[in-house]
C-alpha cells in the first residue's frame, strides 16, 4: 500500500483520460493517481473505465475491485479482479456480469469488512488443517517403509484408508470452513484495521504452509514411533503379543483419528451446535464403523474382504493400547498448545485482542444483567444494555421512564458528544446549569416581541437526537437565516402557552417534528430520542393554536420539517454510539 502523504485528489474527465491512457502517458497517470487519496474520473466511456482498471492491474501488485450498477459498468466489472454489481434502478446488466451483487452501495462495506474477511480467515484455516491431516495420515507409511522392506505395505486397514478423508475427518473441517468467525460482525465493522491481514497475505503464505507441513510430519513421526516402541514388545493381558499387524493398524488408526480431531477442536474458534455434532459425531462414526467392519457378521459374508475380524474388539480392550494412544495424543498436541499460547501471549494480533475484549464484555454484561434486576435505575440500566446488546441489522428503540430529571440535560449539554455542527457548538457554549431555566428565560424575554428572524428554522435541535447530525441540515441557519434563539422561541410559540413544556401526547413520537417534541419532552420526562412510531403529524393543530404571525411561517416550517425529518430519521437518531 502506498504511503499517501498530503490530501490530494485527482479529477479527470473522459477527454483528458483518453490522452492520459496513451502508452507513453499511462505510467505518468498511474504515478500521479497513486499519489492521490482519491481519483475521480467523470464523463468516461465504459471502455475507459475498463482501461483504468487494467492499468492498475498491470502495474500494481494489488487486488482490484470494481463496483457499478449500470450496463456501462459491465466492462469495468469484468476486467477487475472482483466485480460487484448493484441491482436496482439501472437494471440487472451489472449483476449478470459481476461476482457479487447486492442492492445498495452501502452493502459493500459489509461485503469487504465482514464477509470478505471471514472468508479469507476460513479458507486459510481450512487449507492449513487439510494439509496437516493428510501429511499426518500419509507420512506414517513412509516411516513404516523402513521396517517393511519398502514393499509399500500399508499401515492401516484398506477401508480406513478409503473412509479417512471421506467420513472421518471431512465434516469437522467443513463445519469450520463454513461457520468460523474470529470476531463478530459488529467488531469487524468497528475496527477496519482487522482487514489488514487479508491484504498483506498474512494467514497463508509460504511460511505458514511450511509450518503446517512440518506439523503434519512431526505428527506422523509420533504416530508411528510411539506405537512401534510400545507394541513391539507388548502383550495382551492374555499374553498374546500385541505386535501383530492388525493390532498395530487399529492402534495407529485410532491414535490418528483422535489426534486430528483434537487438532480441529483446537483450530475451531467458533463452536456452533453444528461444529459440536460434526466433530464428536465423526469420532463416534469412526468407532462404530470400525467395530462394524471388524464384526463377525461382515466377515461371514465375505472372509477375504473383511479379514480384520475381531481386531478392534480385541485391541481396544487392552489398557496398554489406550495408554499408547493417550501418550501419542499428548506428545502431538502439547507443543502446538505451547506455541499458540506463547504467540497469543507475547505477540497478540489485533483480532486476538478484539476477540478477547469482546468475550470479556460479554461476561460483564451477563454479570450485570443478573445483578441489575431490581431498582428504578435498573430500568435505565437495562435500556442501555439493550442498546449495547442490540443485534446489528434490526433497529430497536429504547424507552426509559423516570420520575425525576434524568439524562436529558447531560445529553443536551453536549459535554459527552462530539460537536460537529456550528449550532450545536453555540448551543453548548451557553454554560447554563439547567436547560429548563434557559428555556424559561428565553420564553419570557421573547414572548412580547415577534421573532425578528421569522424564518422558523428549528434547525439544530436534533442536537439531542444524535451527536453528529448531518451537517448540511444542521446548518440550515445559514439557509434560512435564523438563529438558535429563534428556533427555541419558535417552537415555544407554537405550543399552547399555558403548558409550554408539556409533552404532546403522541406527538412526542412524531417524525414530522422531531426537534420540537424531543426537546420539550426531554425536560418533562427523560424520553430518549425516539424513532419508533409513525409520523403523528400534529402540525396543523399546532399551527392553529399558535399566534397568527406564525401561520405563514407554519407552512414553511411544515415543509422544512418534513424535509428535515427525512434527514434526521436517517441519521441514526439512536443514543450516542459506542
Amino acid at each position, binding site marked *: 500500500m502506498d504511503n499517501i502523504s498530503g490530501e490530494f485528489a485527482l479529477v479527470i474527465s473522459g477527454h483528458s483520460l483518453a490522452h492520459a491512457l496513451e502508452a507513453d502517458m499511462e505510467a505518468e497517470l498511474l504515478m500521479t493517481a497513486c499519489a492521490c487519496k482519491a481519483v475521480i474520473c467523470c464523463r468516461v466511456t465504459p471502455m475507459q473505465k475498463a482501461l483504468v482498471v487494467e492499468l492498475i492491474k498491470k502495474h500494481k501488485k494489488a487486488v482490484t475491485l470494481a463496483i457499478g450498477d449500470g450496463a456501462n459498468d459491465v466492462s469495468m466489472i469484468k476486467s477487475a479482479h472482483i466485480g460487484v454489481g448493484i441491482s436496482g434502478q439501472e437494471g440487472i446488466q451489472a449483476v449478470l456480469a459481476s461476482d457479487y451483487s447486492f442492492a445498495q452501495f452501502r452493502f459493500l462495506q459489509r461485503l469487504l469488512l465482514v464477509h470478505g474477511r471471514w472468508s479469507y480467515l476460513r479458507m486459510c484455516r481450512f487449507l492449513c488443517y487439510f494439509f496437516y491431516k493428510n501429511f499426518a495420515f500419509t507420512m506414517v507409511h513412509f516411516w513404516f517403509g523402513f521396517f517393511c522392506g519398502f514393499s509399500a505395505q500399508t499401515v492401516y486397514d484398506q477401508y480406513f484408508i478409503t473412509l479417512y478423508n471421506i467420513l472421518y475427518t471431512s465434516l469437522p473441517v467443513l463445519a469450520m470452513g463454513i461457520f468460523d468467525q474470529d470476531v463478530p460482525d459488529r467488531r469487524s465493522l468497528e475496527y477496519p484495521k482487522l482487514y489488514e491481514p487479508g491484504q498483506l497475505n498474512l494467514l497463508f503464505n509460504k511460511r505458514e504452509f511450511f509450518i503446517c507441513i512440518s506439523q503434519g510430519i512431526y505428527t506422523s513421526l509420533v504416530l508411528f514411533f510411539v506405537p512401534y516402541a510400545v507394541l513391539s514388545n507388548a502383550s495382551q493381558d492374555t499374553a498374546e503379543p500385541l505386535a501383530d499387524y492388525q493390532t498395530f493398524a487399529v492402534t495407529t488408526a485410532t491414535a490418528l483419528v483422535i489426534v486430528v480431531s483434537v487438532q480441529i477442536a483446537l483450530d475451531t474458534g467458533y463452536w456452533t451446535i453444528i461444529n459440536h455434532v460434526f466433530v464428536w459425531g465423526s469420532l463416534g462414526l469412526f468407532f462404530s464403523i470400525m467395530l462394524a467392519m471388524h464384526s463377525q457378521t461382515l466377515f461371514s459374508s465375505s472372509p477375504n474382504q473383511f479379514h480384520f475380524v475381531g481386531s478392534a474388539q480385541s485391541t481396544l480392550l487392552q489398557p*496398554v493400547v489406550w495408554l499408547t494412544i493417550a501418550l501419542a495424543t499428548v506428545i502431538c498436541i502439547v507443543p502446538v498448545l505451547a506455541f499458540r499460547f506463547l504467540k497469543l501471549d507475547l505477540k497478540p494480533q489485533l483480532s486476538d485482542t478484539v476477540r478477547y475484549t469482546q468475550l470479556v464484555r460479554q461476561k460483564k454484561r451477563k454479570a450485570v444483567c443478573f445483578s441489575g434486576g431490581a431498582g428504578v435505575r435498573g430500568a435505565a440500566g437495562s435500556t442501555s444494555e439493550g442498546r449495547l446488546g442490540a443485534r446489528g441489522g434490526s433497529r430497536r428503540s429504547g424507552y426509559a421512564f423516570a420520575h425525576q430529571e434524568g439524562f436529558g440535560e447531560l445529553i443536551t449539554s453536549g459535554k459527552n458528544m462530539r460537536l460537529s455542527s456550528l449550532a450545536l457548538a453555540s448551543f453548548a457554549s451557553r454554560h447554563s446549569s439547567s436547560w429548563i431555566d434557559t428555556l424559561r428565560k428565553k420564553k419570557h424575554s421573547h414572548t412580547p416581541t415577534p421573532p425578528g428572524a421569522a424564518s422558523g428554522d428549528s434547525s439544530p435541535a436534533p442536537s439531542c437526537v444524535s451527536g453528529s447530525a448531518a451537517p448540511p441540515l444542521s446548518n440550515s441557519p445559514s439557509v434560512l437565516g435564523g438563529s438558535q434563539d429563534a428556533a427555541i422561541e419558535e417552537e415555544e410559540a407554537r405550543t399552547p402557552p399555558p403548558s409550554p413544556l408539556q409533552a404532546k401526547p403522541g406527538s412526542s413520537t412524531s417524525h414530522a417534528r422531531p426537534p420540537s417534541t424531543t426537546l420539550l419532552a426531554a425536560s418533562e420526562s427523560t424520553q430518549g430520542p425516539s424513532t419508533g412510531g409513525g409520523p403523528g403529524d400534529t402540525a396543523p393543530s399546532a399551527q392553529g393554536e399558535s399566534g397568527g404571525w406564525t401561520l405563514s411561517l407554519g407552512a414553511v416550517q411544515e415543509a422544512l420539517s418534513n424535509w428535515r425529518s427525512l434527514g434526521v430519521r436517517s441519521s441514526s437518531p439512536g443514543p450516542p454510539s459506542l
Partner: protein
Amino acid sequence: MMASSYNAKEEDGHITVSGPGTLKSKKPDNTAFKQQRLPAWQPILTAGTVLPAFFVIGLLFIPIGIGLYVTSNNIKEFEIDYTGTEPSSPCYNCSVNFSWNSSRPCSCSLPFTLEQPFESNVFVYYGLSNFYQNHRRYVKSRDDSQLNGNVDSLKSPSKECEPYAHSDDKPIAPCGAIANSMFNDTLELFFMDPNGTRIQIPLTKRGIAWWTDKHVKFRNPGGDNPNLTSVFQGTSKPVNWHRPVSELDSDPENNGFVNEDFIVWMRTAALPTFRKLYRIVQKKSHLVPTLPSGNYTLEVVYNYPVRSFDGRKRMILSTISWMGGKNPFLGLAYITVGAVCFLLGVVLLVIHHKYGSRNNSADIPN
C-alpha cells in the same frame, strides 16, 4: 467512529419481484443460521486455561509412568538365542548342516539358569529377527475363505496365493506363502533338579490363539467331520511342510486349520523383530513357584532355517501382568512426557508473568 451509520433510503433495501399476482421478496431470511448469528462458544487460550492444563497433564502422567515402570520391573523375563551362529553354540551343527529333505531331525540342547523364580503362569514365546512378515506380497499371500472352511476355495485357492497355490497338480491346503513358512521348531524345557534328575516341564498347547481366530476365522472344511484325512483328500501339503495339515496334532480339536500353532503363525507380525506365543506353563499352586530358580535345559528340534537371510531365533520366558509383558518404554515415556509437560508449564508461567501482554485494560488502537 462507527462506520455503519450510513444514510439509506429505506430500511434494508430489498428487491421485490412481482410475479404473477404475488410479490416475492428476494431478501434473504433473517434466521440465525442464514445470517451467521448462531449461538456459539468461543474459546480462547488464556493463561488461566492453558497453564493449569499443562500442570494437570504433568501431575497425571508422572504417577502413571511410575506405576507402569514399577509394574514392568516386577515382570520377569528371560531370553535365550539359539540360532547357532557361533561354533561354540550347541546348535551350530544343526544350523550349518540344515537341508530341506533330511529325514532325521536335528536336535540341540542349551543349558540356562534362572536367577529368580517365576510365579503364576509362565508363557513361552519363540522370537524371530530380520523376518519380514510385514512385506506386502507376503501379507497378501493367503486365502481367508479357504481357511474359513469354504469347500470351493479348498479346491481352487485364490490367485493371491500364487506361486504357493498348487503343487503336484493338486491345490495346496493351506495355500500361500504365510502358511508355507510356518515355524516348525519344537522347544522343550527341562528343569535340572539339584540332586541330578531332569524333570520335564509340562507345556500347554491350547489357549495360545485369539478366541475370534480359533472359533470364527479359522474353520475346518467339512463341518465337524473328525476324519480330517478324508476332508483334505485331493489337496497337497504346502511345499516346505514335513506333514500335511491333517496331521498337525493328534487332538482332533487342534488339528487341521484350527491348529493353534498354525493360527498363531498366520496372524502376521507388524515388525521384522517379533515374538509369538508358543506354549504356556500353568501355575501349580500359590505356594510353589511355577519355575523355581535354578538350572534348566532347552531342547530344540531344529527344523526352521534362518541362516540364509541372517535371521535369528530365540526363546523367551515371561510372566504377565495387567499391562501385558515387560515394557519399560511405556513407563519411562510417561514419566518423561509428564516431567516435560510440567516443566513447560512452569516455563510458560514465568514467561507469562514477565513478558505476557496484560489483557486487563484492553486498549485497542484504531
